């Protein structure tokens, strides 16, 4: 085979591959075990206070991929995952991703503030309550982590300590999927204070 014919064959193969799989330079995420779109339900909304006393609503994050982490300062497995989530926040914040931590500590901010400062958590934390837990099915085990797609729907749930790569794969997969425009619920821009602010 001449060099010219070989070049034509390779170029044709590349173009065909682009047509079938796309030519994005972004590395495809390993297939994560996300729920199919049809099986996803809208995440219940809540309004909780952050450390500055500002009200944070989950619906404020519509249009972004959200990792919603129910955790507590007394929870050892939660403390393994928190540095991963800080890493995800740093890495994907500008791609439309946010981590939101919901502390379930009985002592509220008295317990949470020192911990957040000790660890240097770089994502927003709110303090949850029974009502919040009930909305999400009565959370009992910590950590319980929800991955929410850009349409505000729950795409995945992890109960207990999960693996960093499972989260990473799922986040990358969700970030590659644009929000659906149906019903005028397209991507929205968050105020700067909500984007990754503590």
């Amino acid at each position, binding site marked *: 085979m001449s060099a010219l014919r070989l070049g034509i064959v390779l170029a044709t193969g590349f173009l065909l591959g682009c047509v079938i799989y796309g030519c994005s330079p972004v590395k495809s995420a390993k297939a994560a075990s996300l729920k199919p779109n049809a099986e996803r339900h809208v995440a219940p909304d809540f309004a909780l206070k952050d450390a500055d006393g500002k009200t944070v609503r989950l619906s404020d994050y519509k249009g972004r991929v959200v990792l919603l982490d129910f955790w507590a*300062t*007394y*929870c*050892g497995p*939660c403390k393994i995952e928190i540095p991963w989530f800080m890493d995800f926040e740093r890495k994907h914040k500008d791609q439309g991703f946010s981590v939101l931590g919901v502390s379930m500590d009985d002592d509220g901010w008295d*317990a949470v503030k020192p911990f957040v400062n000790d660890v240097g958590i770089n994502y927003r934390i709110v303090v949850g309550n029974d009502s919040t837990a009930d909305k999400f099915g009565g959370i009992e*085990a*910590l950590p319980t982590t929800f991955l929410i797609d850009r349409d505000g729907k729950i795409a995945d749930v992890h109960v207990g*300590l999960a693996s960093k790569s499972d989260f990473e794969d799922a986040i990358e997969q969700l970030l590659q999927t644009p929000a659906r425009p149906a019903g005028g619920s397209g991507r929205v821009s968050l105020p700067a204070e909500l984007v990754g602010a503590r």
Partner: protein
Amino acid sequence: MWAQGKQYLTADAAQKLVAKRGTAAEAKITVSVDPGFHVNSNTPNDTYLIPLKLTWAPGGALEPGEVVFPKPQMEKYEFSEKPLSVFTGDFDLIAKFKVPAGASQGPGIMLGKLRYQACNSNSCFPPKTLEVRLSYQVQ
């Protein structure tokens, strides 16, 4: 804050405490932690962990004193960098009391609250409080 829901241990004072007025007495409380779970000891080795604690409600004929815990186990879990001070399985707490000289003779019940926080190998559960009932007879 959290609804009490499922408990991860049981605690029983199986034997009635019989004590004379003007003396000291002690009761054995047997605690059984569900298989696969652990609870923090009374002296957890991390600031943020919630200790096992037994308290008695006022009002009984007995004056609550010290609660003696067994020696904790130091266990390493997948989620902890260092071994944790915990209790697992079955163990006994010794609750000490004084019986005042002027205590009323007869039967009664001391009501206690055992507060604990349980985890398994990959999850933790909200702090719970379990009621402990101790029957006594003052002679």
